[in-house]
């Protein structure tokens, strides 16, 4: 798997089992001041089971890319293919965790009802629903908060509920849009470890959009660095850190520092308007 993921942009498409294929994706918004090209040309593949992080400078079209992946926006050109099927609406096998957990959870439903809703929409039988909801809430450490309302919980706990809702749905691809941008640093570290261990336990392909370089390197097996708008993939970095990561040890390792430097350099290149990475040792 690792040999393919290091593929440089423009090289022949990998032949491994790609669960997500993005080809020539382009998104142009019509505005009053004429068309705005948010995404220029994005192409990448994600093998089944990978944890890939997508980073880019502010305004790099990260959210636009995510919405195209989620089928919530239709691209101007190019396509997103999920499990061999072209995405032209929210695909069945995908769950999205949004940054704004407070707005993404329904305040009129309890925690349990929020987690249950996608299963109801999926027409999962009631007895299975109860079991899956309980399991998902246990997995995020909220087994005893099912009857609370989201607004009675802290921000970090609310985002846990949103994550529970996503994993109870049993998606093949989990999409996360800067999910921890709005929580404090310590909660953030806990949630990072939670997401990492859920990924290891469930083996679900995870695409994690963030603007945080350290977070991307800490979480991912791979980091895609986006250029500034109109966006392309500026760098594609394999994160060859050990699978078991720990907040203090991993982040203080020499390899982490090297990877972090490369991703950070990529972000700086993107801000400078470059479309390809500047020369540097990996």
């Amino acid at each position: 798997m690792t040999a393919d993921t290091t593929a440089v942009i423009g090289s022949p498409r990998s032949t491994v089992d790609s669960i997500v294929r993005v080809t020539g994706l382009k998104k142009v918004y019509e505005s009053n001041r004429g068309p705005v090209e948010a995404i220029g040309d994005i192409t990448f593949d994600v093998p089944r089971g990978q944890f890939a992080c997508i980073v880019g400078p502010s305004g790099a079209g990260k959210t636009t890319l995510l919405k195209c992946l989620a089928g919530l926006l239709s691209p101007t050109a190019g396509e997103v293919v999920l499990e061999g099927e072209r995405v032209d609406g929210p695909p069945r096998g995908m769950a999205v965790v949004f940054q704004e957990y407070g707005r993404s959870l329904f305040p009129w439903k309890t925690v349990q009802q929020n987690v249950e809703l996608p299963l109801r929409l999926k027409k999962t039988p009631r007895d299975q629903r109860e079991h899956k909801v309980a399991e998902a809430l246990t997995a995020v450490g909220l087994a005893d908060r099912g009857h609370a309302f989201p607004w009675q919980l802290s921000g970090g706990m609310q985002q846990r509920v949103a994550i529970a809702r996503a994993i109870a749905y049993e998606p093949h691809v989990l999409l996360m849009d800067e999910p921890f941008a709005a929580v404090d640093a310590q909660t953030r570290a806990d949630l990072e470890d939670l997401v990492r261990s859920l990924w290891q336990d469930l083996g679900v392909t995870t695409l994690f959009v963030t603007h945080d370089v350290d977070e991307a390197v800490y979480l991912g097996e791979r980091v895609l660095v986006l250029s500034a708008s109109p966006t392309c993939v500026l760098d594609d970095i394999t994160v060859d850190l050990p699978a078991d990561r720990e907040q203090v040890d991993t982040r203080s390792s020499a390899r982490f520092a090297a990877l972090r430097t490369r991703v950070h350099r990529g972000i700086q290149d993107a801000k400078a308007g470059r479309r390809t990475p500047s020369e540097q040792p990996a």
Partner: protein
Amino acid sequence: MTLLDSAPPSVADPASPTPTRPRRAGSLRAPLVGIAVTLVLAELLPRAGLIGGDALPPLSSVVAELVRQLGDSTLWEALGQTMRTWAVGLVLAVTGGVVVGVLIGLAPVLRELTASTVEFLRPIPSVALIPAVILLFGTGYQSGVVLIVYAGFWQVLVQVLYGVQDIDPVAEETARSYHAGPWALVRHLVWPTALPFVFTGVRLAASVALVLAITGELVIGTPGIGSAIAVAQSSGATTVTFALVVLTGVLGVLVNVAFRAAERSLLSWHPSVRRAGGAR
């Protein structure tokens, strides 16, 4: 006087669909003082004979008359007739306003098509329609119902339109990403979002409906509290007249209190109610 009352009241601020404010315990004294002063004035002014001479009875005799009337089955019959008109009209107005409001609110095309028509029809005072309604529907209680439906429908419709506009885009994207179909969207997202606005609309419509039920009876002569007031007035029974007027006031308060209580229990999740009830 009722002509003014029945003009549609201004629309509630969409940002605060339920203007419920918690009342601090210390400020409970002020309203009590206000009530006491009003009661004393209502007793003393008629006795002093400054207004209307004998036509304005003192409060004590009005209340005594009301208590006497409450022991009389004719009053209860009239009250039942008025409340039937009120309830039938309100149910129809709310149902119509909610269904049409959700449909129009969810379809931007319909919204644009109907906006100017709604703005023209909405301000027409229902009482201005009384002569036309008598021509079309006769003098039965149905005419009162029609007046109430006309006035109440707009109250609810406008609120529902605000409510549907209040849907959070992130919540909508969440629902869409989990494959909510049109019916599931309405049930799990649109309806709960609009509910606080619906309640405001229903409360406004309920008050207007009461005004119109009684106005209709007064003007058209359909049996009920309104016509009882007209009969008492024309037979010179001034104390009875005022006793019935006080009764309509009590009805209005009861209707408002009942809807506020329902609102609080059904919207316990809503920020305005959360604040009033404290964190739970």
